């Protein structure tokens, strides 16, 4: 106790530990962020090219955001992805957590299995799912044909199927993340409550409805906030599978569209404006999510 109070009185060690992190943040977060704001108002003709003054008018890129049909598509897809993330990622994770929590043997095995996709790089997963959804000789098409469910290959990336093909791997990858959080929350619920409820005849679905879910509310709220904010940042896996807005400019997400404009088209200033839009959306949505899914202190 004595030593810890001495530690807090002496500010030197605190400074020594905080300065590297602060420098890191300034160099790699605050400076690029401020530069990005400046870029969004500037006229930049190519990737790596210096700015040639301000745009005319200086808000031109922000005005373009409202008339860009591809950006509208990207925003629409991102909203759908966010909803799917909440419903399927957290929903499936909750069901799996409840199931695993109710078994005595093999719980640890399932935890490892469900969490495993998280540790694989999104690029590797994207390449793997590309093979699964491949048109000629892909695993899924072979399976369906061998089972007699289809007589010809299905283009899983065409305009009729791309949403399913894009979102399924994203959902699958992060289910395990929320699963682990929810299982940890379930473990924190005292067993005495379940025993007392069982004496009153509260078992099965009723136990989940009246004991588990109410006591898991705060953990669920945290998962939902993480899911909403995480969905806005999804980039790598869809980019590997659906780069350049495949199919026919219908597969854009805000992240992939921003990347394409900046790095493939060399439209750096417009890409910066899209990045600002993503930041604003992220702040607004995370605030809304925080208010809607606000944890209660009385639980």
């Amino acid at each position, binding site marked *: 106790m004595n030593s810890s109070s001495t530690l807090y009185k002496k500010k030197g060690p605190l400074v020594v530990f905080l300065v*590297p992190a602060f420098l890191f943040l300034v160099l790699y977060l605050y400076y690029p962020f401020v530069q990005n704001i400046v870029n969004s108002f500037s006229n930049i003709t*190519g990737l790596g090219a210096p700015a040639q003054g301000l745009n005319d008018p200086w808000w031109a890129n922000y005005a373009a955001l409202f008339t860009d049909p591809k950006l509208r598509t990207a925003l629409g897809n991102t909203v759908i992805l966010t909803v799917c993330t909440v419903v399927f990622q957290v929903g499936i994770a909750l069901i799996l957590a409840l199931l695993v929590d109710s078994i005595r043997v093999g719980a640890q095995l399932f935890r490892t299995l469900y969490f495993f996709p998280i540790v694989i790089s999104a690029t590797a997963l994207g390449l793997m799912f590309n093979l699964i959804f491949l048109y000629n000789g892909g695993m899924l098409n072979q399976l369906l044909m061998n089972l007699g469910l289809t007589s010809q290959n299905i283009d899983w990336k065409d305009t009729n199927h791309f949403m399913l093909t894009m979102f399924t791997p994203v959902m699958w990858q992060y289910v395990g993340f929320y699963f682990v959080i929810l299982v940890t929350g379930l473990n924190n619920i005292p067993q005495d409550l379940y025993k007392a409820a069982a004496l009153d005849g509260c078992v099965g679905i009723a136990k989940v409805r009246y004991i588990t879910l109410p006591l898991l509310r705060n953990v669920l709220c945290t998962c939902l906030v993480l899911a909403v904010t995480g969905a806005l940042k999804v980039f790598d896996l869809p980019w590997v599978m659906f780069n350049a807005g495949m199919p*026919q400019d219908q597969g854009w997400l805000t992240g992939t569209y921003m990347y394409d404009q900046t*790095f493939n088209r*060399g439209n750096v200033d417009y890409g910066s404006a899209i990045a600002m839009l993503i930041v604003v959306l992220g702040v607004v949505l995370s605030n809304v999510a925080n208010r809607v899914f606000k944890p209660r202190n009385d639980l």
Partner: protein
Amino acid sequence: MKKNRLFALLLAAVMLLSLLAGCGGKPGGDDSTKDPGPGGQDTQKPAASVELNVVTSYGGDDGNRKSYENAVKGYEDATGNKVQDASGTSNEEWKAKVLTDFETGTEPDVLFFFTSADAEPIIQAGKVVDVATIRAEYPDYGSNMRDSMLAVASDGKNYAIPSSGFWENMFVNTKVLSDCGVAVPGPDYTWDQFLADCQTIKDKGYTPIACSLFEVPHYWFEFCIMNNGTLASQLDIPASADDAVGKKWAAGLNDIKDLYERGFFPVNTLTATDAETVQLFGDGEAAFLIDGSWKVNYFVDNHGDTLSDYAISYVPAKGERTAGEAIGGISMGYFITKKAWDDPAKREAAVQFVKHMTSDDVMSTFVTTEVTALKNGASPAGLNALQQAAADANANITGVIGPVQDAVSPECKADLFANVQNVVTGAMTAEEAVASAIALN
């Protein structure tokens, strides 16, 4: 306790240092030897072993990767220098990355890059050294090349020593054609014959044309606009979609749309990658493929057992163009950067490297049937069946011109080719696609 504090301080110091690591200094060199003095004329001998940073497009699955690795090893063995190779696969992303490296001061010592408009940003920024300056100190630099074939930059100077050139033409799967009763196209092949052949092939259950319109529509674009113009006017750039060149481009796009609507491309041509459609051709499920000379080695490496099933033929012609006219030229070469030139430890090593990579012997391992700037020509050893087919086809080539895509800005090119999928599906007209691209040039 004191030990813990010391350890904590040490840890923080290491973190701080690791944060700042790489923020200064130049890779692979000793700063104490790097001041060349005024004019950069220091003639100090290079260190015993110099580490040379090299970027080329011979990365990934490039057909010449093995030849490149052998050539680099030969250089290392001969000089004792080390090559830090950061080669990548040539595409728009790679080009952008290379240019960004120059902007951020992390350029390589030697760069193998496009000599077209793509290189103008680094030339105009004075980031690479012109050939005349290098020859003032090393008179035999690139002396085995025909000077008339060195690319001329916008300032009238030569900067790159050319490597092997390229050609783009029609690969055909002879097994598929034979099964469909279609003859291998000759130098008099016409567009109407091609349409009829494609229909026959399609009716037989094969895919007539292997092409990803999503990823590589440019091969067909180049030939389709040549079919609606002439070889001589291939490099003309439209000022608007309404002028003669703009109409030529639109007509070319509409020809691609016609092929798409007839169902001659793979079913998934708008979602497939180039690798997928080339695989389709390689596996004997498609008949025609327009690709470049670099693809020959791909087939040698991946379909070596069935090389006799492929041949190089002619892209069908219409209008004033004849099928013997093709796309080709020398579009890439070796640049020495100003950074390496100003570094006395690296100047000699960089010059030696380029001289080695462009020597007659090494070039002959890269060149099989491609255009070359070598004064003595290349002497490729024993051509395989496909290379021989390419050589035979090239013997009947009556005219070669560079691709027009190299003459427009990267933004224009990216927009034009991204909109090919919208043109063929009717989401936009060919004229709208041309106008959209030209606005970015």
